[in-house]
């Protein structure tokens, strides 16, 4: 296990940082909500921790992960996938505690946790008699 915490940036990437030649793929995602927050898992195989950018702004979560190919492009005997970077955006429908958003990359699997803001948490209201 080599979990790496990733800094959550709250501003957009400069557009000049994106490579023009690379293809972008939509990383497959699992999303789970519970009373305390939302968890998002994304498959980003080949992306190094330092190449992953997680941005939250105005209720929108953006994830970008770059995959840098080798210097030379080989002559494939069999090619079932292309190399490219990942990009995915999510609209988060509940208020979240921005300061406590975390992102961890582990074996090519990115986990982003967005804790709900206190007001958004489900509360059981006791009925007074």
């Amino acid at each position, binding site marked *: 296990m080599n979990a790496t915490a990733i800094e959550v940036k709250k501003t957009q990437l400069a557009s000049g940082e994106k490579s023009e030649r690379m293809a972008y793929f939509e990383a497959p995602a*699992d*999303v789970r909500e519970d009373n305390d927050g939302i968890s998002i898992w994304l498959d980003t195989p080949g992306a190094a921790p330092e190449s992953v950018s997680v941005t939250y702004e105005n209720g929108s979560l953006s994830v970008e992960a770059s995959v840098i190919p080798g210097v030379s492009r080989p002559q494939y005997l069999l090619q079932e996938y292309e190399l490219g970077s990942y990009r995915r955006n999510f609209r988060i429908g509940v208020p979240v505690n921005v300061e406590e958003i975390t992102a961890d990359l582990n074996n090519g699997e990115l986990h982003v946790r967005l804790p709900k803001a206190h007001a958004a948490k489900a509360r059981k209201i006791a009925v007074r008699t």
Partner: protein
Amino acid sequence: MVTTDFPMIRALDSWRQPMESPLTRFFDSVFEDVHPLWSISAAMQMPPVNLWEEGDNVMLECELPGVKPDQVDIEVSGDQLRLSVRRDEPGVEEKNGGRWLRRERSFGQFTRTLKLPYELDAEKVEAKLHNGILTLTMPKAPHHRPHRVKLLK
């Protein structure tokens, strides 16, 4: 080997739910018969591989996000490569009102056998798993490598 496309399961699930007629009930019963096959979590979508030559080596890369080294089993015999992989779902707490909003990734086990264009030097095959990519460096068997002849002086 059964391969499973989980998004398809969800699509069919949501498609059949709103309808209620004798015909849909018939399809439902058919669907129920078929469903156990699709719901085999032991069948994961086949991860793709890339294969190329690099000098005296055959190189293979395979996308295996979320897979740990002890969940990969590699066997090499002659020109055959057998790859067995298990991928576990992330542990989630069922309590605390948890529910899935989206499930696009697949988990479970798969085994794949590839026939390579060369016999391999099985003892010298090296495997590395880094950032969710499996890389195999597979030296060709000595009789497939070019033999360099020295000129006599």
